[in-house]
């Protein structure tokens, strides 16, 4: 790299940094404002000339948010649904991912393209037939119905992502183990599985987040008494208006655990997603 370019860069570094800070402030503002509103007294939230910096800290919005409608019931239901979906998705998805990444067989290409194509069907387009299907099966307003439904998007996602992780593990490792006397199964369990574990964890967490965040099916397929966590957030708007400060407190309670989970896995996931999609 020529010296001219380097010194030119150093000179403009300050400009880039300022621009970068602007991006940081803009991108982070909605999150900041959610937290800011959640912790400020409800009457400060409806100040027509709001102060951008935190004034005083209160937790009253959180207790109001917990009061407004049952919070732990929806959270429990969301947990049950998301965890079940992820467990089924990972077990079933793992087998399928192994099949398409480690075996050569006729029809493999069709399966791969099928699993990719299936992810393109917008969930919204499916809501009508899914609603009718669950209605016929007597699974409307049941957690099992919701679990079955969530598999439509979690399963293809899991298969495809796990495949991305498996493809990145060199086949030679398994072969070496098999040369050394392992069976195909033990080679998988002792060599591939440990290498795959981080990817599996990341996929599970990401799948969990997706299931947890799902809104449309949860709204359509569950009644008011059986609502899940995302739908719970709708309780702050009534005919008397919206209670914004408690609503932001509720949003904070919903978002923080998810964002933290997300932080833990996002690096791994970004790698897995691109590997799966770009690497042939």
């Amino acid at each position: 790299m020529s010296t001219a370019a380097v010194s030119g860069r150093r000179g403009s570094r300050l400009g880039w940094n300022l621009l970068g800070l602007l991006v940081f402030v803009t991108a982070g503002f909605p999150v900041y404002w959610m937290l800011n509103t959640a912790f400020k007294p409800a009457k400060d939230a409806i100040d027509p000339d709001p102060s951008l910096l935190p004034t005083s800290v209160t937790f009253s919005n959180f207790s109001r948010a917990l009061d407004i409608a049952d919070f732990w019931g929806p959270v429990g239901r969301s947990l049950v649904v998301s965890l079940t979906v992820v467990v089924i998705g990972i077990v079933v998805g793992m087998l399928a991912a192994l099949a398409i990444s480690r075996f050569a067989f006729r029809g493999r290409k069709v399966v791969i393209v099928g699993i990719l194509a299936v992810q393109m069907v917008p969930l919204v387009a499916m809501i009508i037939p899914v609603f009718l299907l669950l209605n016929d099966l007597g699974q409307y307003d049941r957690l099992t119905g919701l679990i079955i439904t969530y598999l439509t998007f979690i399963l293809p996602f899991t298969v495809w992502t796990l495949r991305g992780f498996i493809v990145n593990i060199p086949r030679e490792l398994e072969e070496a183990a098999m040369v050394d006397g392992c069976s195909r199964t033990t080679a998988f369990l002792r060599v591939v599985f440990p290498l795959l574990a981080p990817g599996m964890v990341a996929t599970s967490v990401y799948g969990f987040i997706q299931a947890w965040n799902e809104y449309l099916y949860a709204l359509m397929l569950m009644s008011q008494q059986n609502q899940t966590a995302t739908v719970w957030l709708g309780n702050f708007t009534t005919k008397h208006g919206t209670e914004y400060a408690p609503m932001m407190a509720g949003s904070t309670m919903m978002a923080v655990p998810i964002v933290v989970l997300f932080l833990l896995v996002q690096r791994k996931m970004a790698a897995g997603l691109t590997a799966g999609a770009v690497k042939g």
Partner: protein
Amino acid sequence: MSAADTTTPTKVPPPRQVPPAPPAAAGRASGTKRSGGGAVPWALLAPCLLILAVVLGYPLVRLVTLSFQKFGQSQLWGFQPAESVGFDNFAKVLGDGEFWTVVVRTVVFAAACVVFTMVIGMLIALLLQRVSGWVKTLINIALVASWGMPIIVATTVFKWLFDSDYGIFNALLSKLPGVDMIGHNWFASGPEGLAVITLLVVWGAVPFVVITLSAGLTQVPKELEEAARLDGAGAWGVFRYVTLPILKPIVVMLTTLSVIWDMGVFPQVFVMRGGHPEAEFQLLTTYSYDRAFVVNDYAQGSAIALLTVLLLLGVIGVYMRQMLKIGEVE
């Protein structure tokens, strides 16, 4: 479907299929086995395919058949059998002027979302290469936080930001000299409201694009850019003729995913408008939902959903070709 399958991998019979690499003879042997097909991979695939057939295949087929039937409230309750009506639903939908308005609105909205997401994402990814480490960390934190926000929470927060009386956005705008936006209702008109929703969608979609592109940018050889610069290329020239061609596969993938996601925008509009989007806010997704669950014409709703899928397929045909290529390479 769970307990039995958990144990399946341990039961997989040993070798049979030998990786094609090592000695030539083994490679040929596996070649013949390949053409014969194998029971093992299909056994591994079976649970997955079975579930998908039930939860995805059946509803997809039902979506198609439904759109050729008459299916309203009385058919839902089973008072009347669903009769086939041929292309009636499609004729009704396609003959409706409102449908075409909605199609145009959806395409414009999705296009705006995709273009802004990709351009802003690319700019931020390029910026990240030029800032100091600590600024990069700050930006990454903000991006991951907005990426991880549940859509429903993000929508709620934006509703608050753009509230007409107490929203911070109006308050900040009014700080500008000569501007008084207090009380301005962003959702009084469709275009303004959809602009806010576009902002919301872009805000949530940019992080994925930035992080993926950043990973891609590290793959661009510094020597190539340097060589182009020595040959007299400006910043734009280097980007256009060196960086972009290398990033092309990632850009194509990201654009396609964005198209799929942005054509499927639903909760953002639905929640922003309190569960009843006005006519001016209808996109194909909400329109189909509206027809089915508000007007109770499930058949017409299905027809609209099906047309949406077809439209989407047309748009992403390019990507489909690339997928086929992926299938071939492997």
